[in-house]
């Protein structure tokens, strides 16, 4: 039982395996090549959005567009921060508790949005994030509108996930968390649950007629999304030592979580990472070179790129590969195979 579960968690294609090994080596070498703070900060941001995008992808592969990733992210960040601020709970316990809280929230959202689909689902998730923001602003216990400064113990510690002098440990922690997320997501995509999610996106009526309980499936997807999206929240809180409604319930976070998944490829395992690797450095680059002083030229360029992608490559960056290998080739093969057989040229 456990063996088969592990098997589905570590199922990778042949080329995929080599790319993964190569990628892992690159990511491990990266902080030793670029020692400055900024490149490491960018990669940390990439991993944060990759995790948020991966979480988005679970509901996304079921055709449920979430525009409230920042809700899960922010709630988890605040839960762990309050636990450490008021009760002295350490980071890792706080992280697990935050994930559990998000799972419960996932259940309530799942039942709340049970009959809500398509654009209405997206709007409802925006509303959730805005509601949470309003609550945080008016609640002094969680810092109110001022925000919450987390205490720093004047010594770096892995247990508290606090490193004042060096960002490299943060880099490796978030990378390790991302690896865990990928293993879990790969497990989901390679089991019945993953197939059901795709079927739900394909056609809900047909899915129901084939024995899929749509309501329960939807709830499970939202829970999985909420639990995974909980991971970067506590990390970000310890990374910046400061939480506010502005940074943790920012609509832009939701949009970026969606964009990295859409840019990389909806419903794909590696799409969010690929999307984040392209989008985050690109947006930083544009911000530095052509943005600034309120002109927002960088966002205009970014928006144009997204529009071009949406029109000409809706399957995302990974879609280039899928198009060639999975969709076009078998069709050609089938055609050739048949015509050869018909003429008797084969064998």
């Amino acid at each position, binding site marked *: 039982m456990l063996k088969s579960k592990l098997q589905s968690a570590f199922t990778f294609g042949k080329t995929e395996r080599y790319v993964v090994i190569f990628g892992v080596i690159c990511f491990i070498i990266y902080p030793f090549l670029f020692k400055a703070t900024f490149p490491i900060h960018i990669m940390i941001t990439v991993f944060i959005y990759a995790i948020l995008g991966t979480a988005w992808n679970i509901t996304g592969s079921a055709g449920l567009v979430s525009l409230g990733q920042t809700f899960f992210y922010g709630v988890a960040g605040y839960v762990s921060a309050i636990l450490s601020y008021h009760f002295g709970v350490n980071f890792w316990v706080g992280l697990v508790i935050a994930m559990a809280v998000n799972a419960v929230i996932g259940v309530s959202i799942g039942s709340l949005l049970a009959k809500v689909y398509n654009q209405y689902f997206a709007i409802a998730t925006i509303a959730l994030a805005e509601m949470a923001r309003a609550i945080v602003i008016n609640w002094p216990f969680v810092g109110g509108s001022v925000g919450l400064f987390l205490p720093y113990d004047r010594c770096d510690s892995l247990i508290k996930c606090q490193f004042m002098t060096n960002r490299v440990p943060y880099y490796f922690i978030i990378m390790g968390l991302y690896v865990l997320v990928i293993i879990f997501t790969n497990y989901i995509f390679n089991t019945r649950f993953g197939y059901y999610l795709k079927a739900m996106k394909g*056609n809900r009526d047909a899915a129901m*007629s084939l*024995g899929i309980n749509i309501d329960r499936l939807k709830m499970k997807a939202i829970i999985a999304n909420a639990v995974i999206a909980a991971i970067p929240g506590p990390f970000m809180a310890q990374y910046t030592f400061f939480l506010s409604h502005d940074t943790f319930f920012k609509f832009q976070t939701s949009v970026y979580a969606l964009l990295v998944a859409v840019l990389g490829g909806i419903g794909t395992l590696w799409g969010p990472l690929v999307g984040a690797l392209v989008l985050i450095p690109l947006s930083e680059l544009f911000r530095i070179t052509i943005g600034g002083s309120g002109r927002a030229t960088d966002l205009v360029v970014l928006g144009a790129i997204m529009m071009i992608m949406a029109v000409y490559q809706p399957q995302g960056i990974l879609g280039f590969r899928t198009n060639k290998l999975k969709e076009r080739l078998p069709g050609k093969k089938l055609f050739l195979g048949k015509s050869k057989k018909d003429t008797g040229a084969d064998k």
Partner: protein
Amino acid sequence: MKRLEVKNLNKSFGGLKATNNVSFSVEPGEVLGLIGPNGAGKTTLFNCLTGFLKVDSGTVHFGDDEVQNKLPDKINKMGIARTFQIPHTFRNMTVLENVMVGAFSKSNDVNQCREEALEVLKFIGMEHKKDLMGQHITLADEKLLAIARALSTKPGLLLLDEAMSGLTPLEAQYAIEVVKKIRASGVSIIVVEHVMEIVMPISDRVIVINAGAKIADGKPEVVSRDPAVIECYLGGV
């Protein structure tokens, strides 16, 4: 024992009686043709049997189980599978994955379901197309795929809602062969069709519905000569 027994089934939408006191039964291994003019209530009846619509009154028994007003997924798990007028293919999945989703109804082991799905595809003659995406196959293949998908849930009763309409005569001929093969494997089938050339030769028995009510029930050759049936199709003389 009867595979399916429907007793006094009623369903109305406001003032319109879409299903009016319909009773019939299906024997194991039988192909039942369900015909009637446009708007007669054939699809409504299907939706009532498979849980997509709640019935107003009456009972539906599948073997010993009561089926009426249960959720579609529960009814499928009991052993009633259906196809739709529009094939409703999962366009974002390959043909094999489409069928696997059906196979998951009875098991959650991926490898086992893949094997089962391949077997169903072989049975229906589509295995060479297993890696094509759902959005790239033709209508005829989509209709066959819908049957394969329903079949992979290992049903005792298969409801085919116009599974053979819109096909060329050659494709329809192939689909008829498939239906005959399915019947030979012991599955009962209810076929809704408009095309008489299809429904008459494959049905063991035919029931005719007009304006929600059953007006004839019997052997195909008898029913097709029934004056009431001729009248509802061609109008009164």
